[in-house]
């Protein structure tokens, strides 16, 4: 019988929480106070720092889903499956944030709610794929759930370069409202670059923090089930 966890958390968790909150606070300060307002786009441009950071974090999360799915199919332990599920949920969360911040940025600047730019379109398709992933987990029968999800997790990520290529090609055929600066690294003055990097770090830290919390929840659930099984089994004898 396993020892029940005490209510207090190990020190490393406190450090991680503190670090996450700290860097996020610095990032917010940087984005809203420190960095100068961009000339062409005005105050709305500030959302770019989070929009792109969240997008990159989303990719990291989905990459993690792929790795964890391969790990699960190979090792068949629940830990890998928990990692895949947690990373997928966080990925979808951050994906949704990209799809929300995108229009918020686009509307004041380009006058349209949605610009079919390649990254945004790719994000939309990924959202559809990984939402389907989560729905599959909910719908599949117990014995199949984790395996099917792992397969979709791998296929989803393998599809990314293919989607990216076609969507970029497709986009070049459509007239854009205004020439888009994709927030690329070129041409960013140092203060903006610094702000971007801090925002990126903040988003990554946040995602890892959430990932850890979610995985702990998943592990707890497994332990609960194991205990329940033990009890039932001992009654049956």
């Amino acid at each position: 019988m396993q020892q029940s966890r005490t209510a207090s958390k190990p020190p490393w968790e406190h450090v991680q929480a503190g670090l996450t909150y700290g860097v996020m606070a610095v990032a917010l300060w940087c984005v809203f106070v420190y960095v100068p307002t961009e000339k062409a786009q005005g105050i709305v441009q500030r959302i770019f720092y989070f929009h792109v950071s969240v997008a990159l974090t989303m990719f990291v999360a989905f990459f993690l889903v792929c790795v964890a799915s391969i790990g699960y199919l190979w090792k068949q332990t629940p830990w890998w499956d928990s990692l895949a599920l947690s990373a997928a949920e966080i990925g979808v969360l951050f994906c949704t944030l990209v799809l929300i911040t995108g229009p918020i940025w686009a509307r004041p600047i380009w006058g349209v709610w949605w610009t079919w730019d390649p990254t945004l379109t790719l994000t939309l398709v990924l959202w559809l794929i990984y939402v389907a992933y989560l729905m599959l987990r909910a719908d599949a029968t117990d014995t199949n759930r984790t395996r099917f999800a792992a397969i979709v997790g791998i296929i989803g990520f393998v599809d990314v370069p293919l989607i990216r290529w076609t969507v970029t090609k497709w986009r070049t055929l459509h007239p854009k409202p205004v020439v888009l600066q994709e927030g690329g690294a070129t041409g960013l003055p140092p203060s903006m670059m610094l702000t971007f990097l801090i925002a990126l770090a903040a988003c990554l830290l946040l995602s890892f923090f959430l990932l850890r919390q979610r995985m702990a929840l998943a592990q707890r659930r497994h332990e609960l089930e194991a205990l329940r099984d033990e009890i039932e089994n001992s009654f049956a004898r």
Partner: protein
Amino acid sequence: MLSSRRFVRQGLAILLKDLRLEWRTRAIFTSMFVFTVLVMVVFNFAIGADPERIRAVAPGVLWVALLFATVLGLQRAVQVESEEDCLQGVLLAMGDRSALFVAKAVVNVCYLSVVALGALPLFSIWFRIDIISCLGALSIVLILGIIGLSLVGTLFAMISANTRTRGLQLPLLFLPVSVPLTIAAVYATTELIQGRGLPDIRDYLTLMVVFDVVFFVVTLLVFDYVVEE
């Protein structure tokens, strides 16, 4: 694996069995074909009377019709196999289970090809597009697209067969994942009917080939995990 005689024997047996079943009932093919025609007709009404506009969206309509026909055909095929748990019976007899996957995918390619063959004349007439001049190149685009759709579709069909909402899961998974193929196919078709040749659509063809190859490999690798218990 692929060269083993048992692989070929079992794959062929399944392929022939499916074709024989289909020939007897013609249920799958009929529903796929009728649905394709329906989509083309409805789109014609939905887009409006302007013939130029209709011509412009025609390739998109064709591929949307094929996409939905694939989903429909696969759902019915899954239904046939689950009626008396025949899939279990077959799996118990299989040596290398990927023979089952390859056979099913080939069967799908057959159905889609026949549907496309039947739909093309109607497509040409209703959308006023001359396909005769680009028929050869168009066939290549069609076959590459159909192969990709069948590979991805068959895998997801077998996955969704084991879920509670099997009717919903298949399109939910299949449609987003096949987006690259759809885009490439539609644009390749557009270029061809506008009079350009194969060299002009080299990019799209490359993507479709890459898609097909990547998914062929990936699906063969994971298929065992789909059917094991």
